[in-house]
């Protein structure tokens, strides 16, 4: 019964999407078109999507194992929070959540469309087309409401697409993928990522609409820059949480493995980051029109490409837990998106050919171009590295792997160059920069950065890459701090209190200062990545109960073991007391453990992490039994800085959309006020 309701919801949403696509594209070039029907269609689509998601959750929470998805991905013993998360943790459910997010975004866009706004009407048409694909897929190859028709050995062996009356249901479900039900972050990571992925549909739709209409202005950027920033912030948060989950759950002591599917999330992030920066140039100076269109097309295409990599099972990885007809469908859609939007672009390219030229490469615009060159090069390199094994296997017939060594080697120099540009760019004037002006703004931070590097060396750091990153990181943060302090000083002379002045400055240009906050976060992340990888200690130790051993500058004492039977799993672990090197001062009691889930033969090693100001101690059970265990012992310096830096990046993204420039000023002369270069000096 609930399956019928859910499928109806999907079909209604799909129908509304079709209406929206047809109407939107028809009315895009009609003067003064009335968007009332589009608004209703968007509301109906949202309603359908909500019904589908709710039906799926109800089915999961009531353990309706006659639905194949529920039987395959949940069990009666699954804790509530993971039951809830199961609604989007596997393939079909994740697409339902995708559709829901898309429908919600569409509703928000449609609500603000006014009559005669052809750009937004056309954009709704494009969003309608994209939605039609997703709801179409839910109704066909990825139907989450398929009914189980045959049970073999307690497992649903056959299913029917249409909710028939006669169905069979296994007595108990299989339960979620053990890796996914091992940590709470798994309930949060995918929705954040989807908010980011799906959000990129909006700027893409407005860009395509502008091209179809032959509208060459920056209206599409003005209408969507908040969408882009919000989507980018969620994408950043999603990637950050993914890394955190990997660190807390996978037990190999890392947060990023250049896994193809990690790359799949990183690629649209890089493209979107480039787009955010080059959009500033167009909104401010009217340049880079064609480039912005290319970037937004690339960003959206890469989100589809990422979904394809994740969901098609083309590449063997932690993330690809399914193989189905979804892969070819996504690949086809990717082809339509890339070829379709590039064709529209080519047909309209004569309109964007007359963009004004740069006055000088030594200017803010020039640094923005440099930044874009680096980010797109980065994206291209990661794309080549990710696709290379597939291509070689397809055309060369040899099996090869491209892994961490390659990605590390290419990304380090690019990251250095990006950090350098990040330091100089934000204080470089627009148009033509006089060397003396730029020098005065970076002089003191430059000295500070060298002092920072020297301090790291004196502290005992002997890794050259780490020292370089410290120098660059201090430089980036120093330039921003000097810039802020200079502005606060001027305001304090006018009698403002420091905090008041700070709020005033940020409030006047949240876009710029949000960006700078994000830059601070990136600099911290860079330092943390360098220290936690280059200065890490990796070792292992075998301990018997009562043993004490000194590893990696710490004393470990095996005090006992425990075994706990929980409803959905069996937890076996050991109590390790962490002491300082001399085995005198007690630091913490840690519980590395192995979680055994009924639907998996292999236990999931769950690490114990003790976060300190200087470094993290990370213990993971690598083998052994109750009497003697093998422990992986990792020490990661400044690990907390990575999470903090990441959160600061996200905060910067949200800050930049948090406020608007105040427009309520009284101007007592009839003069055109120029919106301004307030952040240049």
């Amino acid at each position, binding site marked *: 019964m609930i399956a019928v309701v859910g499928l109806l919801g999907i079909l209604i949403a799909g129908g509304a999407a079709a209406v929206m696509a047809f109407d939107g594209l028809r009315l895009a070039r009609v003067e003064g078109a009335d968007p009332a029907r589009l608004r209703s269609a968007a509301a109906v689509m949202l309603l359908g999507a909500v019904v589908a998601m709710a039906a799926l959750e109800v089915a999961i929470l009531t353990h309706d194992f006659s639905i194949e998805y529920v039987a395959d991905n949940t069990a009666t013993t699954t804790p509530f929070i993971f039951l809830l998360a199961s609604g989007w943790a596997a393939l079909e459910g994740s697409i339902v959540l995708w559709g829901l997010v898309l429908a919600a975004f569409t509703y928000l866009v449609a609500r603000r469309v006014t009559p005669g706004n052809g750009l937004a009407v056309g954009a709704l048409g494009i969003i309608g087309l994209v939605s039609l694909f997703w709801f179409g897929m839910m109704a066909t190859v990825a139907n989450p409401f398929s009914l189980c028709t045959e049970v073999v050995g307690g497992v649903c062996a056959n299913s029917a697409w249409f909710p028939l009356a006669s169905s069979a249901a296994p007595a108990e479900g299989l339960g979620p993928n053990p890796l996914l039900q091992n940590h709470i972050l798994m309930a949060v990571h995918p929705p954040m990522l989807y908010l980011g992925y799906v959000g990129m549909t909006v700027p893409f739709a407005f860009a395509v609409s502008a091209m179809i209409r032959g509208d060459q202005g920056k209206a599409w950027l003005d209408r969507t820059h908040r969408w882009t920033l919000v989507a980018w912030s969620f994408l950043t948060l999603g990637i950050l949480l993914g890394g955190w989950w990997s660190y807390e759950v996978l037990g190999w002591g890392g947060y990023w493995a250049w896994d193809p599917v990690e790359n799949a999330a990183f690629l649209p992030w890089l493209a979107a980051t480039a787009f955010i920066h080059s959009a500033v140039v167009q909104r401010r100076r009217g340049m880079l029109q064609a480039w912005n269109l290319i970037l937004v097309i690339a960003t959206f295409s890469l989100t589809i490409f990422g979904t394809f990599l994740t969901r098609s099972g083309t590449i063997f990885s932690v993330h690809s837990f399914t193989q189905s007809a979804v892969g070819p469908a996504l690949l086809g859609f990717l082809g339509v998106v890339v070829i379709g939007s590039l064709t529209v672009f080519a047909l309209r390219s004569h309109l964007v050919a007359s963009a004004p030229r740069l006055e000088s490469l030594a200017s803010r615009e020039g640094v923005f171009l440099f930044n874009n060159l680096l980010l797109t090069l980065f994206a291209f*390199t990661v794309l080549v590295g990710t696709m290379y094994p597939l291509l070689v296997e397809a055309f060369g017939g040899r099996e090869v792997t491209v892994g961490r060594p390659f990605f590390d080697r290419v990304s380090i120099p690019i990251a250095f160059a990006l950090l350098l540009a990040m330091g100089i760019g934000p204080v470089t004037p627009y148009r033509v920069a006089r060397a003396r002006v730029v020098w005065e703004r970076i002089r003191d931070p430059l000295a500070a950065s060298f002092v920072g590097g020297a301090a790291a060396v004196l502290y005992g750091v002997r890794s050259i890459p780490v020292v370089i990153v410290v120098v660059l990181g201090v430089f980036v943060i120093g330039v921003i701090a000097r810039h802020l302090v200079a502005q606060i000083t001027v305001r304090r002379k006018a009698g403002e209190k420091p905090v008041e002045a700070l709020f005033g400055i940020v409030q006047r240009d949240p876009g710029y200062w949000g960006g700078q906050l994000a830059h601070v976060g990136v600099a911290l992340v860079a330092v943390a990545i360098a220290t936690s990888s280059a200065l890490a200690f990796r070792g292992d130790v075998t301990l018997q109960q009562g043993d004490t051993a000194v590893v990696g500058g710490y004393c470990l004492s095996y005090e006992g073991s425990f075994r706990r039977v929980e409803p959905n799993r069996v937890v076996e672990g050991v109590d390790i007391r962490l002491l300082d090197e001399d085995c005198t001062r007690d630091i913490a009691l840690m519980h590395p453990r192995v979680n055994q889930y009924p639907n998996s033969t292999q236990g999931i090693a769950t690490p114990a992490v003790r976060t300190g100001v200087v470094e993290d101690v990370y213990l993971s059970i690598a083998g052994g039994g109750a009497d003697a265990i093998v422990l992986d012992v990792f020490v990661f310096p400044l690990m907390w800085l990575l999470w903090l830096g990441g959160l600061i990046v996200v905060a910067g993204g949200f800050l930049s959309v948090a406020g608007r420039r105040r427009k309520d000023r009284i101007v007592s002369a009839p003069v055109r006020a120029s919106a301004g270069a307030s952040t240049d000096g």
Partner: protein
Amino acid sequence: MADSRNRTFVAIAISLAALAVMVGALWPRGETVRTDAERVDHIASRMRCPFCSGESIADATAQVARDLEVVIEEQVAAGMTDDEIFAFFADRYGESLLLDPPLFGWGWALWVLPLAALGVGAFAVVRRRRNREEAEPIAAADSLEAARLRERLEYVARDRDEIAIQEARGEIDRGTAVALATTLDAEARALSAALEATDEAGYGAASGLVRNRRVWAGAGVLLVGAVAVAATLLLSADGSGEGGIVDAPPIDLASITTERLEEVVAANPDVIPMRLALGQMLMDEGEVARAAMQFGEVLQREDNPEAMAWLGWISFLAEQHDMAENFLVDALAIEPDYPQAQWWLANVRLLGLGDAAGAITPLEHLLESPGVPDDVRVAAEGMLERAREES
């Protein structure tokens, strides 16, 4: 200036000292010998664990990875080189075990493609810059085209304003600013003409053309007239000695057009009152950027409080409140009894910087000075009341 040079010297000295510390500590001393454990780590991190999810042997937690690590340890201990060990594993488990793909045929593509992309990108940027002299094609007449032209015109106007501000702040030097401004003016003229042609499109393109010709003819006549007047004035100025033009009666500021005054000023660059008058006329016409340039010219010649005050007001209009305050405070330092500057300073502090307390002093000062017009007095009293409430 001297202060700036000193600070540069100090900054460079500190940087060099710090650099010396870093280089001294990090300079490689002799050959570093890798320990066996380091070699095992290096090799294990460059091979994929065959039955894990894409993790390296060093990273993977599976038993297989541990076993393979033991094999690597044995081979390292037996004295095999890194390459021999890689070859051994590749032979046994296939080439796809190697995370760093060997550079056979296709392998080069992995490195060459990104490098090629870098080259193409850099070339595109440089070419983009070279082509900037190309003329702007302005074509097509429909509503979208008109919207595009209008948007571009807005950009040009904003660029003009910002150049004046940037020049005042010293970010752009004078020569560059003038060159940029000239280019922008030319573009603005072309855009306006194209926009006019688009607006007139309903009457046919020809009428737009005729109209354009009329505009140009009018401008030409005006220019000739202005040059003639300028020449006359120049001659008369020669005779009138120190006071310059201002003493010469023929000029009536109330009736002269801005264009003519501009010509006159251009011919007599050092006559300050004339420039100030021109600046005020331009302000009245809403030509903020051009007015700012005139006031800036004045400041290059002398510390004139009136020019400072006007630049302060212009900065306020451009939302450069900090700079506005600086200009106005400087103006009042030179001429404390200057009601207009007091009034503007109060505006900047109260409305721009949100500094109500700071607005009180200039307002009180203003109300004390004699000869303030009644309407200004009323406005100032109103603002003073508001400032006292807010502070």
